[in-house]
């Protein structure tokens, strides 16, 4: 009997890629997709890498699929925006060996800046989109997606969502298939997308999608479960589980392929069932298409376009609210915060003191926007901090940004920040950019990148020197400071924002959660000397609390001994001790 394991959705997707014979995978980390690449990296048979961004990752996967091996790229939903340039045209070229693009959506915004729906992109790019509803399906449907890619000569989008990626269920392991590599044949009309070729390929794309829409009604992963024919649901992915939980008696049309839709199958289902609900998180992608065929269904007038769904939510709509209102206690919120010993806190404490605004970016340091640090004013997308600040200067002149900096992490800088910095150099910026270099991709759980000296597989490699990189593109003033040296940091920031010279300050200190990092001291408060002024609490360290008498206490188990709090005590009440 096959081995059964309980697996995270992302682990199962990686297993699916392994069993499907994927040989090359490229990705950029992003919650909730990150672990897929980390799990896949454990299989020796698969080459896996972190690319600097999703566009690069998809192009790498495209190259390897054209060369003839089964390939995959992996990213979060907003990463697909970065990769959409190659994506839309890869729909035209098609593939040689199979190409699956795994995209993880985040309904409910567990760790993202928006709630966009990848199925909309699949539709507009005319790409098939496959969506599983548990870990075992994640593995099996991946293999289906790979077959689909080769059968129809198209990249396939494999959509997951946070709840699927980060929930575990039972998986039956299978063996890896090892198909022969495809032979590469030069074909200008297929692979060189100049207008003359692309005109022809666009015809192919439309025909392919029409054919697939017909064939989809007999795809094995589009399934009808007839029960009570008074009520039925068209659904896919995790929402299918909510339907089964809330309405086990209902009929269900469960879609494994959510683009293109199986028109004939849906028409038949809706003919046989009295009232049909379309139960889909985020956008009314299925609902609007079904309605456009003249079929009456219920959908977004009952269910929201925002956040994650649940079985209770469905029950409330169907049977009203009896017995589903629960009294919640009033409790103070516990939002995420920078960790004890986080170097970003040190940097932000200086910026806060100097009353400097920051154009922020995507990473843990986005938390510098909230109290008590209150430094970051804007966060849009990866790499945007630098370009936003440049726009501000061009709008209002160089004096306007004398109390502004851009703050961006090391991994984010290499993702798309460097392009924006090139723009600053080229277009005569006088701004100050701070690269918060903590030697890792922090928020997503510590992934290597091009400046860490290690690959995804854990091998040693060249580590790009961020200071040299900035100098080489022409930044006239590049300064590296220790992120915990607040005096020097203050001096450097004051000088840079006042000057008319484009400056990059690299604030360096490792992430406090980095593996292998040893902490050798702890901070403690001498309560005799503590004047209860609360100045040290302004840095917002979660290891610090007030005793009932107003003196400050530092939790020994939480403190990482960074000593930042010491700098903010005028009375010498905070000391460090070796451990």
């Amino acid at each position, binding site marked *: 009997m096959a081995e*059964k394991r*309980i697996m*995270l959705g992302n682990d199962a997707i990686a297993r699916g890629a392994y069993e499907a014979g994927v040989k090359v995978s490229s990705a950029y980390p992003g*919650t*909730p997709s*990150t*672990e897929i690449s980390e799990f896949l990296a454990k299989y020796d048979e698969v080459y896996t890498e972190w690319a600097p961004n999703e566009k690069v990752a998809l192009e790498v996967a495209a190259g390897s699929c054209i060369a003839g091996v089964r390939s995959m790229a992996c990213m979060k939903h907003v990463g697909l925006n970065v990769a959409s340039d190659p994506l839309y045209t890869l729909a035209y070229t098609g593939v040689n060996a199979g190409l699956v693009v795994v995209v993880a959506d985040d309904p409910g915004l*567990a*760790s993202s800046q928006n709630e966009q729906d990848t199925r909309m992109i699949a539709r507009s790019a005319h790409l098939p989109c496959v969506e599983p509803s*548990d870990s075992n399906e994640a593995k099996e449907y991946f293999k289906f997606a790979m077959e689909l890619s080769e059968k129809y000569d198209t990249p396939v989008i494999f959509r997951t969502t946070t*709840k699927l990626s*980060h*929930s*575990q*269920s*039972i998986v039956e392991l299978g063996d890896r298939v090892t198909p022969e590599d495809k032979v590469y044949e030069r074909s200008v009309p297929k692979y060189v997308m100049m207008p003359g070729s692309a005109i022809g390929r666009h015809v192919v794309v439309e025909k392919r999608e029409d054919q697939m829409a017909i064939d989809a009604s007999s795809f094995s992963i589009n399934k009808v479960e007839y029960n009570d024919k008074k009520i039925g649901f068209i659904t896919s992915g*995790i929402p299918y*589980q*909510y339907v*089964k*939980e809330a309405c086990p008696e209902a009929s269900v049309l469960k879609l494994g392929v959510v683009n293109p839709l199986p028109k004939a199958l849906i028409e038949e289902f809706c003919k046989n069932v009295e009232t049909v609900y379309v139960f889909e998180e985020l956008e009314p992608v299925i609902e609007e298409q079904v309605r456009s065929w003249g079929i009456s269904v219920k959908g977004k007038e009952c269910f929201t376009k925002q956040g994650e769904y*649940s*079985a*209770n939510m469905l029950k409330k709509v169907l049977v009203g609210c009896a*017995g*589903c209102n*629960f*009294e*919640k*206690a*009033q*409790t*103070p*919120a*516990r*939002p*995420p*915060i*920078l*960790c004890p010993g986080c170097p970003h806190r040190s940097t932000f404490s200086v910026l806060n003191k100097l009353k400097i605004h920051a154009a922020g970016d995507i990473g*843990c340091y*986005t*938390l510098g926007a*909230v*109290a*008590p640090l209150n430094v970051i004013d804007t966060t849009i997308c990866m790499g945007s901090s630098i370009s936003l600040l440049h726009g501000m200067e061009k709008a209002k002149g160089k004096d306007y940004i004398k109390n502004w900096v851009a703050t961006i992490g090391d991994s984010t800088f290499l993702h798309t920040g460097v392009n924006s910095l090139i723009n600053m150099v080229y277009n005569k910026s006088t701004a100050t950019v701070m690269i918060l270099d903590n030697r890792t991709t922090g*928020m*997503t*759980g510590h992934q290597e990148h091009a400046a860490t000296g290690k690959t995804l597989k854990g091998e040693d490699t060249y580590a790009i020197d961020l200071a040299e990189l900035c100098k080489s593109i022409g930044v006239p003033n590049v300064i590296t400071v220790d992120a915990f040296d607040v005096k020097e940091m203050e001096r450097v920031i004051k000088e840079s924002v006042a000057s008319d010279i484009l400056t990059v300050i690299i604030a360096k200190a490792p992430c406090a959660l980095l593996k292998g990092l040893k902490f050798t001291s702890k901070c403690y408060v001498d309560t005799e000397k503590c004047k209860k002024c609360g100045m040290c*609490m302004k840095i*917002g360290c*979660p290891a*610090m*609390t*007030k005793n009932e008498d107003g003196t400050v206490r530092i*939790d020994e*188990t939480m403190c990482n001994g960074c000593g930042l709090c010491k700098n903010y005590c005028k009375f010498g009440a905070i000391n460090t001790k070796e451990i």
Partner: protein
Amino acid sequence: MNIMIVGVGGQGTLLTSRIIGKTALAGGYDVKLSEVHGMAQRGGSVVTFVRFGEKVFEPVCEEGTVDVLISFERLEALRYAHFLKPNGVMIVNDTRIDPMTVVIGAAKYPENIIEYLEKTHKLHKIDAGKIAKELGNSKVLNTVVLGLAAKYIGFDKDAWVSVLQATVPPKTIEINTKAFEKGYEA
């Protein structure tokens, strides 16, 4: 059986839920777990669910359906108490971690949480941090809590211990086993 594990990011709730899930799998059940990764892990309020039975659909527990609520911190127990069934059991690690809203004075940490919850719920509290410290590694507090919860979840003690030993890093098997025993006996 519906189990909910709540705490503060970084307290080791994930490992706890995974051990419960594996033990249920070994017991022949269908199992689903739901976890939290990414930004919420950074010191925020974190929630994991474990569900097992003949067949499990939804990977999360709905309000009012939880059999065993395991809380690694007092305030988090209060925050999620409404998820418990009327006769459900609450395991609370008796410790206080102030959220930033309290640290900066924007909110007050509620007083007498345990006493308040005990009035309406079957509650078993434990000072797991103290026990873990006495064992010599404050990080195994999650295993102490697991040991206590295991009694209420069911399965043989040996089944728990063998999954625990197969899951934790080899170097920590001994101390984790001791921590589990301490919780189980509490």
